[in-house]
């Protein structure tokens, strides 16, 4: 049991706890805060896998930019406390068992895969061969330049689309 291996389970547990709280919290700000906890603990998991750049970007983009907008909008609109509804019959009798089976199946296949064997042996959670930022940028900007640029143009189109939709109402 190395320290990174223990850290993996600690932060995995925090991530799951944050996700559960995100759904259970009734105050929108508490939900947003729980989501930030999930984002940051995921970043720690990336860091443990040796993906430093992805970890930093995860925090900068998701926790630092996207969630700030969420919190900002919740504060600006002064969103009230959520109302609880009675569960629909469909969700209760078909949804819950199906969700349970889905989880079971994912766990089963993960356990049988190579990663599962590694985790069981206590080595899989940590990859000491870190991917440097230089390697990553070489891949992005040389080998996969076209898909990268195509994605960025797609995002630009989405931003313009959002602007057009927002302006139409005026």
């Amino acid at each position: 049991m190395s320290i990174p291996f223990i850290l993996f389970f600690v932060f995995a547990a925090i991530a799951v706890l944050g996700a559960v709280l995100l759904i259970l919290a009734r105050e929108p700000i508490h939900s947003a805060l729980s989501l930030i906890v999930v984002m940051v603990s995921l970043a720690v998991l990336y860091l443990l896998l040796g993906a430093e750049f992805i970890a930093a970007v995860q925090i900068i983009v998701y926790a630092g930019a996207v969630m700030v907008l969420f919190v900002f909008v919740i504060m600006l609109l002064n969103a009230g406390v959520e109302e609880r509804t009675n569960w629909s019959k469909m969700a209760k009798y078909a949804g819950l068992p199906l969700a349970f089976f889905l989880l079971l199946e994912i766990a089963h296949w993960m356990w049988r895969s190579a990663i599962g064997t590694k985790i069981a042996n206590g080595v899989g959670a940590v990859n000491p061969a870190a991917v440097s930022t230089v390697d990553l940028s070489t891949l992005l900007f040389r080998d996969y330049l076209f898909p990268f640029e195509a994605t960025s143009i797609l995002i630009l189109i989405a931003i313009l689309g959002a602007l057009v939709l927002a302006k139409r109402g005026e």
Partner: protein
Amino acid sequence: MDFIAQHAVLVVSLVKIAVLLFVVMTVLAYLSWFERKVVAHIQSRWGPYYVGAHGLLQPLADGIKFLFKEDVTPPASDRLVYILAPFLALSLALTTLALIPFGPTTVQVLGQPVFIIANSNIGLLFLFAITSIGVYGVALAGWSSNSKYPLLGSLRSSAQMVSYEVSLTLSVVGVLLVAGTFNFNELIERQRGAFWHWNLFGFGHGQVTQIVGFLCYITAAIAETNRVPFDLPEAETELVAGFHTEYSAFKFAMFFMAEYANMITVSCLATILFFGGWLSPFPDSWTWQLYLPGAGLLLTSLYCLYDSIANMRGIARLQFLAVTALALGGGAICLNSSVMPLVQGPFWFVTKVGFFLFVYVWIRGTLPRFRYDQLMSFGWKLLLPVSLVNLVATALVILVRHG
């Protein structure tokens, strides 16, 4: 001893963290004294004067006052978030200091560098990641107080911090293009030579001058730390005290300390990126510069001695004589030939950071506050385009040089 040798990283790191925390807390306290004193002299006043000689014990008195005041929690507030916000603000502000190198990595104890806690390969990115979460301290403080002035203040500050973060990050990318690394120590090593090798001037081999990038950085940084002239989130005349109106006692002090800690971090970053970090401004061949730290302290002690004899009476004279003895002892230690090379890095780093902190206070004493629309149009219509042009120009120069 075996245990210490085996867990050198852990033991040395813990000691470094404890020492850094102690030093930073002291510096934070005296930064408030420094700010009040400098602003007072700009405005032809004396500033704190009565608690200790030259008001030197004022931070201690303030600290005790904050500890023993009544800690009020507004009944309509969201208790959990209300208590969380100041802790978040202060702890995030202090965490960034773990990434700052205060001296060269060649100074080592048990094989670990002394002057940096986390020598990360993505130091700069990590620092930006932590500062980008720093917005939450301010935003949540305003929201959870459940009161209108704090809410207005925190809305303003969230908008402002998100807007200026873009320019802040873009103004730094020019330096990154030149250096090709995120590691702070490597960033500093690329600027080795004399002051014209610093990224600010950039006359060294393979460097591009970043003077525009620096101006963008320092402007965005002042806005990012919510300081005058960008202190709209806590504009006293409009919003009482902005996001921390409802906070009292030590929780208020935590916001205060977080603001100063952010100022220190931003000044450290300016020093590292544009002013050569812990490197000396003189060429390495000028050996007399090794005597500068000791000589500076000895001169300080001489001045203190003169001041305490000529201008002080009674207990104030005794206190100032104690300061004289401290400076004298420090100077004597710094002139010891075995200590001399070790203090060079921290001496230059602290001097440069101190200069930036002075500039912060100087600007506060000089400039009036922006209006909100001026703030936004300045950030988006001037600062962002200029930092983008700086980035493209730097990239072009590098491209042309490499053919």
